[in-house]
């Protein structure tokens, strides 16, 4: 046993010794049973450590987490679900409570999704970054963000591009994965359609606006994640 050599065993295991130090230690290991045993034990520890299973928290944290996920859920709109109280006519709304229309909200989501969509074109080698990006996310100005028609068109364009990428690359995914994606997209589409129908009857309902925006964002995120999965398999 030698403190000098014992102190080098970890560095030896991790391949961090230079040639000379490694050769000296290897010579020592041929003569020292204690250091050889120590090295075997350290090697066993290093091999076993990454396979730890962990210990669950003493209490289940999921309910708290689920509550904090906020409105990120895909929520089907049902007639029984109460909306927030309407503001009375003439009531002053605090500035922090400004309610955005769903088209304004989704416009912001489109910008994010479009960046991903453009990146996927590059990743898949199907075009230059400029062309598809320009098709999905043109220069945006404040007046444009307020333009409802713009939001509709841009959402449709972003979805079209991502759906095209998904269609072109679907054979790179397992059939079960494709089925999972399609079922999820169908569920989101149903939720969007239901909310759009509902908001036609109640155009000022902020809750419905938020649900439409959230579900459209979900759809873009799902499509983007799916195309990223395809790109990762390319």
């Amino acid at each position: 046993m030698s403190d000098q050599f014992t102190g080098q065993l970890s560095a030896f295991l991790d391949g961090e010794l230079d040639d000379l130090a490694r050769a000296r230690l290897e010579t020592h290991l041929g003569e020292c049973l204690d250091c050889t045993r120590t090295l075997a034990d350290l090697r066993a520890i290093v091999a076993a450590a990454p396979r730890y299973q962990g210990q669950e928290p003493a209490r289940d944290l999921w309910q708290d987490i689920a509550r904090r996920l906020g409105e990120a859920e895909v929520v089907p709109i049902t007639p029984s679900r109460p909306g927030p109280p309407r503001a009375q006519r003439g009531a002053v709304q605090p500035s922090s409570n400004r309610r955005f229309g769903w088209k304004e909200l989704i416009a912001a989501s489109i910008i994010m999704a479009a960046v991903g969509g453009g990146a996927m074109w590059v990743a898949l080698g199907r075009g230059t970054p400029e062309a598809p990006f320009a098709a999905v996310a043109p220069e945006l100005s404040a007046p444009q963000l307020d333009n409802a028609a713009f939001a509709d068109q841009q959402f449709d364009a972003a979805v079209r591009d991502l759906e095209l990428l998904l269609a072109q690359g679907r054979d790179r995914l397992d059939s079960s994965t494709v089925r999972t994606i399609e079922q999820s997209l169908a569920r989101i589409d149903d939720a969007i359609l239901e909310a759009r129908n509902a908001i036609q009857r109640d155009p000022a309902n902020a809750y419905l606006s938020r649900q439409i925006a959230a579900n459209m964002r979900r759809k873009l995120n799902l499509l983007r994640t799916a195309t990223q999965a395809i790109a990762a398999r390319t």
Partner: protein
Amino acid sequence: MTQADLDRDDVLLAAGGDHDAFERLYRRHVARVASLARWLLDPGDADDAVQEVFIRVWQKLHTFAGQSAFGTWLHRVAVNLLVRRRQTLGRSRRREISDEIPVLAAAGISERPDLRVAIERAVDTLPAGAREVFVLHDMEGYKHHEIAELLAVDPGTSRSQLHRARLLLRQQLAT
């Protein structure tokens, strides 16, 4: 179906807003994340930190490119958040360096059938500085220069703490 397959499908669903899919991801991974939090923070902070990790992961799911296993990505997010949280909370753990080399056990431990579980338990007993470096290097696969950056220590300190941790664990496991 492997866990990686299950994760991949659930990530796709969760990115579409599916809470059930995200709960399945949570159930499959919470034990390791909770242990990480307990090892890198004070036990009293661990539960809150675990919640923060999964909320952050939910928010970032759409950025997961699938080029690595979901678990690997999750742990990177977790470690970054846990280390930042510790800094925010002002946890500046004493990273003591001792010249004392633990007494070397005579008996070998490599034959222990319960070695993996025993290591997990023994990690709890390590001094904070040695434990942090061992967890990040040997359990999570970080390099010394990455650990040095994360913990604001010298890479040499990281190496010393790692060696000390391994010898302390060997000693603990041999008893």
